[in-house]
Protein backbone atom coordinates (compact mmCIF):
# COMPACT_ATOMS: atom_id res chain seq x y z
CA UNK A 1 0.00 0.00 0.00
CA UNK A 2 2.95 2.34 0.63
CA UNK A 3 3.51 2.50 -3.12
CA UNK A 4 0.18 4.31 -3.47
CA UNK A 5 0.76 8.02 -4.23
CA UNK A 6 -0.16 10.76 -1.80
CA UNK A 7 -3.54 12.40 -2.41
CA UNK A 8 -3.13 15.73 -4.17
CA UNK A 9 -5.57 18.64 -4.06
CA UNK A 10 -7.96 18.86 -7.00
CA UNK A 11 -8.63 22.60 -7.33
CA UNK A 12 -12.18 23.85 -7.77
CA UNK A 13 -12.97 26.83 -10.03
CA UNK A 14 -12.90 29.11 -6.98
CA UNK A 15 -9.81 27.64 -5.30
CA UNK A 16 -7.67 27.46 -8.46
CA UNK A 17 -6.11 30.94 -7.89
CA UNK A 18 -4.91 29.81 -4.42
CA UNK A 19 -3.11 26.78 -5.85
CA UNK A 20 -1.77 28.75 -8.82
CA UNK A 21 -0.32 31.33 -6.40
CA UNK A 22 1.28 28.49 -4.41
CA UNK A 23 2.90 27.23 -7.63
CA UNK A 24 4.47 30.69 -7.90
CA UNK A 25 5.46 30.45 -4.21
CA UNK A 26 3.08 33.21 -3.19
CA UNK A 27 0.67 32.76 -0.27
CA UNK A 28 -2.73 34.37 -0.71
CA UNK A 29 -5.93 34.52 1.31
CA UNK A 30 -9.37 34.87 -0.16
CA UNK A 31 -11.39 37.90 0.96
CA UNK A 32 -14.89 39.24 0.37
CA UNK A 33 -15.08 42.69 -1.25
CA UNK A 34 -18.59 43.25 0.12
CA UNK A 35 -17.88 42.65 3.82
CA UNK A 36 -14.08 42.93 3.70
CA UNK A 37 -13.49 39.74 5.71
CA UNK A 38 -10.76 37.12 5.14
CA UNK A 39 -11.84 33.60 4.16
CA UNK A 40 -9.88 30.37 4.56
CA UNK A 41 -10.17 27.90 2.85
CA UNK A 42 -11.40 29.54 -0.39
CA UNK A 43 -15.18 29.34 -0.91
CA UNK A 44 -17.56 29.84 -3.81
CA UNK A 45 -19.56 32.32 -1.74
CA UNK A 46 -18.54 34.41 1.26
CA UNK A 47 -19.49 32.41 4.40
CA UNK A 48 -20.22 35.68 6.23
CA UNK A 49 -22.57 37.45 3.79
CA UNK A 50 -22.98 34.94 0.91
CA UNK A 51 -21.45 37.59 -1.37
CA UNK A 52 -20.00 36.40 -4.67
CA UNK A 53 -17.52 39.23 -5.22
CA UNK A 54 -14.42 37.52 -3.85
CA UNK A 55 -10.73 38.20 -4.43
CA UNK A 56 -7.34 36.88 -3.35
CA UNK A 57 -5.04 39.14 -1.32
CA UNK A 58 -1.34 38.62 -0.57
CA UNK A 59 -0.57 37.35 2.95
CA UNK A 60 2.69 37.20 4.87
CA UNK A 61 1.73 33.61 5.78
CA UNK A 62 2.58 34.10 9.43
CA UNK A 63 0.68 32.88 12.43
CA UNK A 64 0.78 30.50 15.35
CA UNK A 65 0.14 26.84 15.96
CA UNK A 66 -3.39 26.24 17.33
CA UNK A 67 -2.81 22.50 17.70
CA UNK A 68 -0.23 20.00 16.48
CA UNK A 69 0.56 16.29 16.32
CA UNK A 70 3.47 14.21 15.08
CA UNK A 71 2.24 11.20 13.15
CA UNK A 72 4.59 8.39 14.12
CA UNK A 73 2.73 5.27 12.90
CA UNK A 74 -0.46 4.14 11.17
CA UNK A 75 -0.54 6.76 8.38
CA UNK A 76 -3.05 6.83 5.52
CA UNK A 77 -1.90 5.38 2.19
CA UNK A 78 0.84 7.42 0.54
CA UNK A 79 2.40 8.74 3.75
CA UNK A 80 4.44 5.77 5.05
CA UNK A 81 7.64 7.23 3.62
CA UNK A 82 6.95 10.61 5.23
CA UNK A 83 6.94 9.32 8.84
CA UNK A 84 7.39 10.98 11.23
CA UNK A 85 5.46 13.96 9.84
CA UNK A 86 3.84 16.84 11.66
CA UNK A 87 0.23 17.94 11.13
CA UNK A 88 -0.88 21.26 12.57
CA UNK A 89 -3.82 23.60 12.55
CA UNK A 90 -2.43 27.09 12.09
CA UNK A 91 -4.14 30.27 13.14
CA UNK A 92 -2.92 32.92 10.69
CA UNK A 93 -2.42 36.51 11.80
CA UNK A 94 -5.44 37.41 9.65
CA UNK A 95 -7.56 35.36 12.12
CA UNK A 96 -8.41 32.44 9.85
CA UNK A 97 -7.26 28.83 10.22
CA UNK A 98 -5.89 26.13 7.96
CA UNK A 99 -4.35 22.68 8.21
CA UNK A 100 -0.81 22.13 7.02
CA UNK A 101 2.42 20.32 7.76
CA UNK A 102 5.23 21.73 9.88
CA UNK A 103 8.43 20.92 7.97
CA UNK A 104 12.14 21.20 8.70
CA UNK A 105 14.61 19.28 10.85
CA UNK A 106 13.14 20.81 14.01
CA UNK A 107 9.51 19.97 13.06
CA UNK A 108 8.98 17.56 15.94
CA UNK A 109 9.73 20.37 18.39
CA UNK A 110 6.64 22.27 17.23
CA UNK A 111 4.33 23.15 20.12
CA UNK A 112 1.00 24.92 20.52
CA UNK A 113 1.53 28.68 20.44
CA UNK A 114 4.74 28.55 18.41
CA UNK A 115 5.07 31.18 15.69
CA UNK A 116 5.26 29.79 12.16
CA UNK A 117 5.87 31.12 8.66
CA UNK A 118 4.73 29.72 5.33
CA UNK A 119 7.03 27.92 2.93
CA UNK A 120 6.32 25.84 -0.14
CA UNK A 121 6.95 22.20 -1.08
CA UNK A 122 6.51 20.53 -4.42
CA UNK A 123 4.25 17.49 -4.10
CA UNK A 124 4.36 14.11 -5.84
CA UNK A 125 3.46 15.01 -9.40
CA UNK A 126 5.96 17.89 -9.57
CA UNK A 127 3.12 20.19 -10.68
CA UNK A 128 1.37 20.77 -7.35
CA UNK A 129 2.93 23.03 -4.74
CA UNK A 130 1.63 22.78 -1.16
CA UNK A 131 1.89 25.64 1.31
CA UNK A 132 3.66 24.24 4.40
CA UNK A 133 4.98 25.96 7.53
CA UNK A 134 8.28 26.24 9.37
CA UNK A 135 8.92 27.26 12.94
CA UNK A 136 9.84 30.95 12.98
CA UNK A 137 13.17 30.59 14.75
CA UNK A 138 13.79 33.43 17.18
CA UNK A 139 10.18 33.97 18.26
CA UNK A 140 9.22 30.30 18.36
CA UNK A 141 12.13 29.04 20.46
CA UNK A 142 12.15 31.87 22.98
CA UNK A 143 9.10 30.50 24.75
Amino acid at each position, binding site marked *: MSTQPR*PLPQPSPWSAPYWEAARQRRFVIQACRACDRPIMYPRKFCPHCLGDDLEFRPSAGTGEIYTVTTQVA*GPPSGFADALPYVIAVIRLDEGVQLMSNIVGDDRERAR*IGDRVRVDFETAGDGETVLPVFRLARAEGRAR
Partner: protein
Amino acid sequence: MKRVTSAVVGIGEVPSGKFPDRSELDAALTVCREAILDAGLGPRDIDVVLPVGALASSHWNVDLVFSRLTEELGMLRSAKMNCQVMAGGATSSSALAVADALIASGQARRVLVVHSDAVGSLPKQRGIDLFATTGVSEEWEAPYGHNMNAVGALATARYMHETGTTEEELASVCVSLRKWAALNPNAMYRTPLTIEEVLGSKMIATPLRSRHCNMLADGAAAFVVAPAKDAPSLTKTPVYVRGHGSLVTHYSMSQDTDLARLGFVEAGRAAYAESGLGAGDIQLAAIYDAYPVWPLIALDGLGLCAGERAGAFVAAGETSPGGSLPMTTNGGMLSMGHTGVGGGIAVLVEGVRQLMGKAGPRQVENLVNAVETASGGTWMDSHVTVLSREAA
Protein backbone atom coordinates in the same frame (compact mmCIF):
# COMPACT_ATOMS: atom_id res chain seq x y z
CA MET B 1 -39.61 22.55 29.10
CA LYS B 2 -40.73 20.32 26.25
CA ARG B 3 -43.76 18.03 26.48
CA VAL B 4 -42.46 14.45 26.43
CA THR B 5 -43.72 12.72 23.30
CA SER B 6 -41.76 9.51 22.87
CA ALA B 7 -40.00 6.66 24.63
CA VAL B 8 -37.57 3.91 23.69
CA VAL B 9 -39.46 0.66 24.29
CA GLY B 10 -37.19 -2.06 22.90
CA ILE B 11 -33.50 -2.73 22.23
CA GLY B 12 -31.38 -5.36 20.48
CA GLU B 13 -27.65 -5.94 20.09
CA VAL B 14 -25.10 -8.54 19.01
CA PRO B 15 -21.47 -8.82 20.22
CA SER B 16 -18.91 -6.45 18.68
CA GLY B 17 -15.58 -7.68 17.34
CA LYS B 18 -14.13 -9.49 14.34
CA PHE B 19 -16.84 -11.75 12.92
CA PRO B 20 -15.87 -12.43 9.30
CA ASP B 21 -18.44 -15.23 9.05
CA ARG B 22 -21.38 -13.12 10.31
CA SER B 23 -22.92 -11.05 7.50
CA GLU B 24 -24.29 -7.56 8.04
CA LEU B 25 -27.75 -8.91 7.10
CA ASP B 26 -27.50 -11.75 9.64
CA ALA B 27 -26.61 -9.31 12.44
CA ALA B 28 -29.24 -6.76 11.36
CA LEU B 29 -32.05 -9.33 11.35
CA THR B 30 -30.99 -10.62 14.76
CA VAL B 31 -30.98 -7.20 16.43
CA CYS B 32 -34.24 -6.08 14.77
CA ARG B 33 -36.03 -9.20 15.91
CA GLU B 34 -34.68 -8.75 19.44
CA ALA B 35 -35.71 -5.06 19.60
CA ILE B 36 -39.20 -5.67 18.16
CA LEU B 37 -39.86 -8.57 20.54
CA ASP B 38 -38.39 -6.60 23.46
CA ALA B 39 -40.98 -3.91 22.71
CA GLY B 40 -43.76 -6.49 22.81
CA LEU B 41 -44.49 -5.91 19.13
CA GLY B 42 -44.66 -7.84 15.88
CA PRO B 43 -43.09 -6.79 12.58
CA ARG B 44 -46.31 -5.35 11.15
CA ASP B 45 -46.60 -2.96 14.08
CA ILE B 46 -43.53 -1.07 12.83
CA ASP B 47 -44.60 1.78 10.56
CA VAL B 48 -41.28 3.56 9.98
CA VAL B 49 -37.85 1.94 9.54
CA LEU B 50 -34.81 4.20 9.87
CA PRO B 51 -31.75 2.18 8.80
CA VAL B 52 -28.49 3.86 9.75
CA GLY B 53 -25.80 4.33 7.08
CA ALA B 54 -23.23 1.53 6.74
CA LEU B 55 -19.65 2.14 5.60
CA ALA B 56 -17.85 -1.15 4.86
CA SER B 57 -19.98 -2.33 1.93
CA SER B 58 -21.74 0.07 -0.42
CA HIS B 59 -23.95 -2.78 -1.65
CA TRP B 60 -25.14 -3.47 1.89
CA ASN B 61 -25.82 0.21 2.39
CA VAL B 62 -27.85 0.30 -0.82
CA ASP B 63 -29.83 -2.69 0.50
CA LEU B 64 -30.55 -0.72 3.68
CA VAL B 65 -31.71 2.30 1.68
CA PHE B 66 -33.92 0.22 -0.59
CA SER B 67 -36.06 -1.47 2.07
CA ARG B 68 -34.33 -4.83 2.26
CA LEU B 69 -34.92 -5.13 6.00
CA THR B 70 -38.56 -4.18 5.57
CA GLU B 71 -38.96 -7.11 3.16
CA GLU B 72 -36.80 -9.61 5.10
CA LEU B 73 -38.65 -8.89 8.36
CA GLY B 74 -42.18 -9.13 6.96
CA MET B 75 -43.19 -5.49 6.98
CA LEU B 76 -44.29 -5.18 3.33
CA ARG B 77 -47.54 -3.27 2.87
CA SER B 78 -47.57 -2.35 6.53
CA ALA B 79 -44.48 -0.13 6.87
CA LYS B 80 -45.18 3.38 5.57
CA MET B 81 -41.60 4.48 5.11
CA ASN B 82 -38.03 3.18 5.01
CA CYS B 83 -35.63 6.10 5.03
CA GLN B 84 -31.95 6.24 5.83
CA VAL B 85 -30.70 8.50 8.61
CA MET B 86 -27.01 9.27 8.51
CA ALA B 87 -24.91 11.65 10.54
CA GLY B 88 -21.86 9.43 11.09
CA GLY B 89 -21.20 8.89 14.77
CA ALA B 90 -24.00 11.32 15.63
CA THR B 91 -26.62 9.16 13.93
CA SER B 92 -27.63 7.72 17.30
CA SER B 93 -28.82 11.02 18.77
CA SER B 94 -29.93 12.30 15.34
CA ALA B 95 -32.07 9.24 14.56
CA LEU B 96 -33.65 9.39 18.00
CA ALA B 97 -34.43 13.09 17.45
CA VAL B 98 -35.96 12.28 14.05
CA ALA B 99 -38.01 9.41 15.51
CA ASP B 100 -39.17 11.66 18.36
CA ALA B 101 -40.25 14.35 15.89
CA LEU B 102 -42.05 11.90 13.59
CA ILE B 103 -43.97 10.60 16.59
CA ALA B 104 -44.68 14.08 17.95
CA SER B 105 -46.16 15.13 14.61
CA GLY B 106 -48.26 11.97 14.31
CA GLN B 107 -46.36 10.79 11.24
CA ALA B 108 -45.19 7.62 12.98
CA ARG B 109 -46.27 5.36 15.83
CA ARG B 110 -43.60 2.63 15.98
CA VAL B 111 -40.15 3.55 14.67
CA LEU B 112 -37.37 0.98 14.25
CA VAL B 113 -33.80 2.33 14.13
CA VAL B 114 -31.22 -0.26 13.08
CA HIS B 115 -27.48 -0.31 12.50
CA SER B 116 -25.34 -3.17 11.17
CA ASP B 117 -21.86 -2.84 9.68
CA ALA B 118 -18.67 -4.85 9.27
CA VAL B 119 -15.87 -2.29 9.35
CA GLY B 120 -13.92 -4.60 11.68
CA SER B 121 -13.48 -7.13 8.89
CA LEU B 122 -11.88 -4.62 6.52
CA PRO B 123 -8.12 -5.02 5.92
CA LYS B 124 -6.29 -2.72 8.36
CA GLN B 125 -5.02 -0.20 5.79
CA ARG B 126 -8.47 0.01 4.17
CA GLY B 127 -9.94 0.82 7.55
CA ILE B 128 -7.39 3.61 8.09
CA ASP B 129 -8.01 4.98 4.59
CA LEU B 130 -11.82 4.77 4.91
CA PHE B 131 -11.79 6.83 8.11
CA ALA B 132 -9.32 9.27 6.51
CA THR B 133 -12.27 10.36 4.33
CA THR B 134 -15.04 10.68 6.95
CA GLY B 135 -15.03 14.39 7.64
CA VAL B 136 -11.54 14.97 6.26
CA SER B 137 -11.39 17.55 3.47
CA GLU B 138 -10.02 15.99 0.29
CA GLU B 139 -8.61 19.31 -0.92
CA TRP B 140 -7.53 21.04 2.31
CA GLU B 141 -6.55 18.26 4.74
CA ALA B 142 -5.91 14.90 3.02
CA PRO B 143 -2.85 16.22 1.11
CA TYR B 144 -1.21 16.83 4.50
CA GLY B 145 -1.68 13.24 5.68
CA HIS B 146 -4.67 13.90 7.93
CA ASN B 147 -6.45 10.80 9.26
CA MET B 148 -8.74 9.77 12.11
CA ASN B 149 -6.00 9.11 14.68
CA ALA B 150 -4.63 12.59 13.92
CA VAL B 151 -8.13 14.00 14.48
CA GLY B 152 -8.09 12.53 17.98
CA ALA B 153 -4.50 13.65 18.52
CA LEU B 154 -5.03 17.26 17.44
CA ALA B 155 -8.04 17.67 19.73
CA THR B 156 -6.25 15.92 22.61
CA ALA B 157 -3.21 18.19 22.29
CA ARG B 158 -5.36 21.33 22.40
CA TYR B 159 -7.51 20.02 25.27
CA MET B 160 -4.45 19.11 27.39
CA HIS B 161 -2.89 22.50 26.61
CA GLU B 162 -5.97 24.43 27.74
CA THR B 163 -6.98 22.33 30.76
CA GLY B 164 -3.69 20.99 32.12
CA THR B 165 -4.99 17.43 31.85
CA THR B 166 -2.13 14.96 32.41
CA GLU B 167 -1.18 11.86 30.42
CA GLU B 168 -2.19 9.70 33.39
CA GLU B 169 -5.61 11.33 33.53
CA LEU B 170 -6.08 10.81 29.79
CA ALA B 171 -5.10 7.14 30.13
CA SER B 172 -7.53 6.74 33.04
CA VAL B 173 -10.44 7.18 30.59
CA CYS B 174 -9.32 4.03 28.73
CA VAL B 175 -8.91 2.18 32.04
CA SER B 176 -12.37 3.22 33.29
CA LEU B 177 -14.02 2.04 30.07
CA ARG B 178 -12.17 -1.28 30.22
CA LYS B 179 -13.42 -1.93 33.74
CA TRP B 180 -16.98 -1.67 32.43
CA ALA B 181 -16.18 -3.79 29.35
CA ALA B 182 -14.95 -6.57 31.63
CA LEU B 183 -18.61 -6.87 32.72
CA ASN B 184 -20.01 -6.79 29.16
CA PRO B 185 -20.11 -10.07 27.21
CA ASN B 186 -20.74 -8.11 23.97
CA ALA B 187 -17.48 -6.13 24.28
CA MET B 188 -14.43 -6.74 22.08
CA TYR B 189 -11.76 -6.17 24.77
CA ARG B 190 -12.46 -7.40 28.30
CA THR B 191 -9.05 -8.07 29.87
CA PRO B 192 -8.03 -5.50 32.52
CA LEU B 193 -5.98 -2.53 31.36
CA THR B 194 -3.63 -0.39 33.48
CA ILE B 195 -2.44 3.21 33.18
CA GLU B 196 1.10 1.85 32.75
CA GLU B 197 0.02 -0.34 29.83
CA VAL B 198 -1.63 2.62 28.11
CA LEU B 199 1.39 4.88 28.63
CA GLY B 200 3.76 2.10 27.57
CA SER B 201 1.95 1.31 24.33
CA LYS B 202 3.28 2.31 20.93
CA MET B 203 3.11 5.99 19.97
CA ILE B 204 0.77 6.55 17.00
CA ALA B 205 0.19 10.31 16.73
CA THR B 206 1.45 12.41 19.64
CA PRO B 207 0.17 12.40 22.34
CA LEU B 208 -1.95 9.35 21.41
CA ARG B 209 -0.61 5.82 21.79
CA SER B 210 -2.12 2.63 20.44
CA ARG B 211 -4.21 2.01 23.61
CA HIS B 212 -5.73 5.49 23.26
CA CYS B 213 -6.99 4.53 19.80
CA ASN B 214 -10.15 2.51 19.14
CA MET B 215 -10.19 -0.67 17.09
CA LEU B 216 -12.65 -1.11 14.24
CA ALA B 217 -15.23 -3.83 14.88
CA ASP B 218 -18.21 -5.56 13.29
CA GLY B 219 -21.41 -4.95 15.17
CA ALA B 220 -25.13 -4.26 15.12
CA ALA B 221 -27.76 -2.75 17.36
CA ALA B 222 -31.38 -1.62 17.09
CA PHE B 223 -34.03 0.19 19.09
CA VAL B 224 -37.76 0.86 18.84
CA VAL B 225 -39.35 4.24 19.64
CA ALA B 226 -43.08 4.68 20.39
CA PRO B 227 -45.37 7.45 21.64
CA ALA B 228 -44.91 8.17 25.35
CA LYS B 229 -48.61 7.63 26.01
CA ASP B 230 -48.49 4.08 24.54
CA ALA B 231 -45.17 3.13 26.14
CA PRO B 232 -46.40 1.77 29.50
CA SER B 233 -48.75 -0.65 27.69
CA LEU B 234 -45.83 -2.03 25.61
CA THR B 235 -43.14 -2.46 28.24
CA LYS B 236 -42.68 -2.28 31.99
CA THR B 237 -39.55 -0.23 31.46
CA PRO B 238 -40.05 2.56 28.92
CA VAL B 239 -37.22 5.08 28.64
CA TYR B 240 -38.57 8.54 27.94
CA VAL B 241 -36.86 11.02 25.62
CA ARG B 242 -36.88 14.09 27.84
CA GLY B 243 -34.71 16.56 25.95
CA HIS B 244 -32.20 16.99 23.16
CA GLY B 245 -29.72 19.69 22.23
CA SER B 246 -27.05 19.88 19.54
CA LEU B 247 -24.70 22.19 17.69
CA VAL B 248 -22.67 21.75 14.49
CA THR B 249 -19.18 23.23 14.96
CA HIS B 250 -17.30 22.21 11.80
CA TYR B 251 -16.96 19.93 8.80
CA SER B 252 -13.15 19.95 8.59
CA MET B 253 -11.58 20.15 12.03
CA SER B 254 -9.13 22.85 10.94
CA GLN B 255 -12.13 25.20 10.85
CA ASP B 256 -13.16 24.60 14.48
CA THR B 257 -12.15 27.54 16.65
CA ASP B 258 -12.74 25.79 19.99
CA LEU B 259 -11.51 22.20 19.82
CA ALA B 260 -11.17 21.94 23.61
CA ARG B 261 -14.91 22.46 24.06
CA LEU B 262 -16.68 21.83 20.74
CA GLY B 263 -20.42 22.50 21.22
CA PHE B 264 -21.17 20.53 24.38
CA VAL B 265 -21.87 23.52 26.61
CA GLU B 266 -24.55 24.81 24.22
CA ALA B 267 -25.95 21.33 23.45
CA GLY B 268 -26.09 20.45 27.13
CA ARG B 269 -27.80 23.71 28.03
CA ALA B 270 -30.50 23.08 25.40
CA ALA B 271 -31.01 19.45 26.41
CA TYR B 272 -31.25 20.30 30.11
CA ALA B 273 -33.72 23.13 29.38
CA GLU B 274 -35.96 20.87 27.29
CA SER B 275 -35.93 18.15 29.92
CA GLY B 276 -36.43 20.39 32.95
CA LEU B 277 -33.51 18.51 34.50
CA GLY B 278 -29.97 19.61 35.33
CA ALA B 279 -26.53 18.12 35.80
CA GLY B 280 -27.35 17.31 39.44
CA ASP B 281 -30.22 15.08 38.34
CA ILE B 282 -28.07 12.84 36.13
CA GLN B 283 -26.92 9.49 37.55
CA LEU B 284 -25.39 7.90 34.46
CA ALA B 285 -23.54 9.20 31.39
CA ALA B 286 -23.58 7.30 28.09
CA ILE B 287 -20.83 9.28 26.39
CA TYR B 288 -19.61 8.81 22.83
CA ASP B 289 -15.87 8.17 23.01
CA ALA B 290 -13.72 6.70 20.21
CA TYR B 291 -10.72 8.56 21.74
CA PRO B 292 -10.36 9.38 25.44
CA VAL B 293 -10.43 13.15 24.96
CA TRP B 294 -14.03 13.25 23.72
CA PRO B 295 -15.63 11.99 26.96
CA LEU B 296 -13.54 14.52 28.89
CA ILE B 297 -14.80 17.37 26.67
CA ALA B 298 -18.40 16.17 27.04
CA LEU B 299 -18.16 15.70 30.82
CA ASP B 300 -16.74 19.23 31.20
CA GLY B 301 -19.35 20.77 28.91
CA LEU B 302 -22.24 19.04 30.66
CA GLY B 303 -21.04 20.08 34.13
CA LEU B 304 -21.07 16.47 35.36
CA CYS B 305 -17.81 16.50 37.36
CA ALA B 306 -18.91 18.22 40.57
CA GLY B 307 -16.76 21.25 39.83
CA GLU B 308 -13.67 19.15 39.09
CA ARG B 309 -11.74 18.98 35.84
CA ALA B 310 -13.01 15.94 33.94
CA GLY B 311 -9.53 14.38 33.83
CA ALA B 312 -9.16 14.50 37.61
CA PHE B 313 -12.72 13.23 38.05
CA VAL B 314 -12.14 10.18 35.84
CA ALA B 315 -8.69 9.50 37.33
CA ALA B 316 -10.29 9.44 40.79
CA GLY B 317 -12.48 6.54 39.65
CA GLU B 318 -15.76 8.46 39.64
CA THR B 319 -16.79 7.10 36.21
CA SER B 320 -15.71 3.49 36.91
CA PRO B 321 -17.80 0.73 38.51
CA GLY B 322 -18.68 1.91 42.01
CA GLY B 323 -18.05 5.58 41.15
CA SER B 324 -20.48 8.48 41.54
CA LEU B 325 -21.15 8.83 37.77
CA PRO B 326 -20.98 5.52 35.88
CA MET B 327 -19.91 6.39 32.34
CA THR B 328 -20.38 4.48 29.07
CA THR B 329 -20.94 1.20 30.84
CA ASN B 330 -20.68 -0.97 27.71
CA GLY B 331 -16.96 -0.10 27.58
CA GLY B 332 -17.35 2.48 24.83
CA MET B 333 -15.76 2.25 21.43
CA LEU B 334 -12.35 2.05 23.11
CA SER B 335 -13.21 -1.34 24.62
CA MET B 336 -16.42 -2.55 22.97
CA GLY B 337 -15.02 -1.75 19.49
CA HIS B 338 -15.68 0.97 16.94
CA THR B 339 -18.42 -0.42 14.71
CA GLY B 340 -18.45 2.63 12.42
CA VAL B 341 -21.60 4.67 12.77
CA GLY B 342 -22.83 2.02 15.20
CA GLY B 343 -20.40 2.93 17.96
CA GLY B 344 -22.81 5.67 18.93
CA ILE B 345 -25.87 3.44 18.55
CA ALA B 346 -24.29 0.98 20.99
CA VAL B 347 -23.65 3.81 23.48
CA LEU B 348 -27.28 4.96 23.20
CA VAL B 349 -28.63 1.41 23.52
CA GLU B 350 -26.46 0.90 26.62
CA GLY B 351 -27.85 4.02 28.26
CA VAL B 352 -31.37 2.76 27.55
CA ARG B 353 -30.47 -0.75 28.74
CA GLN B 354 -29.25 0.63 32.07
CA LEU B 355 -32.41 2.71 32.54
CA MET B 356 -34.49 -0.36 31.68
CA GLY B 357 -32.63 -2.29 34.39
CA LYS B 358 -31.44 -4.91 31.87
CA ALA B 359 -27.66 -4.44 32.19
CA GLY B 360 -26.99 -7.66 34.11
CA PRO B 361 -23.71 -7.77 36.07
CA ARG B 362 -22.95 -4.11 35.27
CA GLN B 363 -26.43 -2.82 36.22
CA VAL B 364 -26.25 0.50 38.08
CA GLU B 365 -28.75 0.68 40.95
CA ASN B 366 -31.37 3.37 41.55
CA LEU B 367 -31.17 4.99 38.13
CA VAL B 368 -33.72 7.56 37.05
CA ASN B 369 -32.02 9.94 34.60
CA ALA B 370 -29.13 9.60 32.16
CA VAL B 371 -27.47 11.68 29.47
CA GLU B 372 -26.40 10.33 26.11
CA THR B 373 -23.97 12.13 23.78
CA ALA B 374 -22.82 11.64 20.22
CA SER B 375 -20.67 13.28 17.59
CA GLY B 376 -20.09 12.58 13.90
CA GLY B 377 -17.22 12.73 11.43
CA THR B 378 -14.30 14.59 12.99
CA TRP B 379 -16.56 15.62 15.93
CA MET B 380 -18.41 17.95 13.61
CA ASP B 381 -21.34 18.22 15.99
CA SER B 382 -22.14 17.89 19.68
CA HIS B 383 -25.35 16.06 20.60
CA VAL B 384 -26.82 15.62 24.07
CA THR B 385 -29.99 13.67 24.90
CA VAL B 386 -31.57 13.42 28.33
CA LEU B 387 -33.25 10.04 28.94
CA SER B 388 -35.36 9.11 31.93
CA ARG B 389 -37.45 6.39 33.51
CA GLU B 390 -39.91 9.12 34.38
CA ALA B 391 -42.16 10.79 31.78
CA ALA B 392 -42.19 14.05 33.73
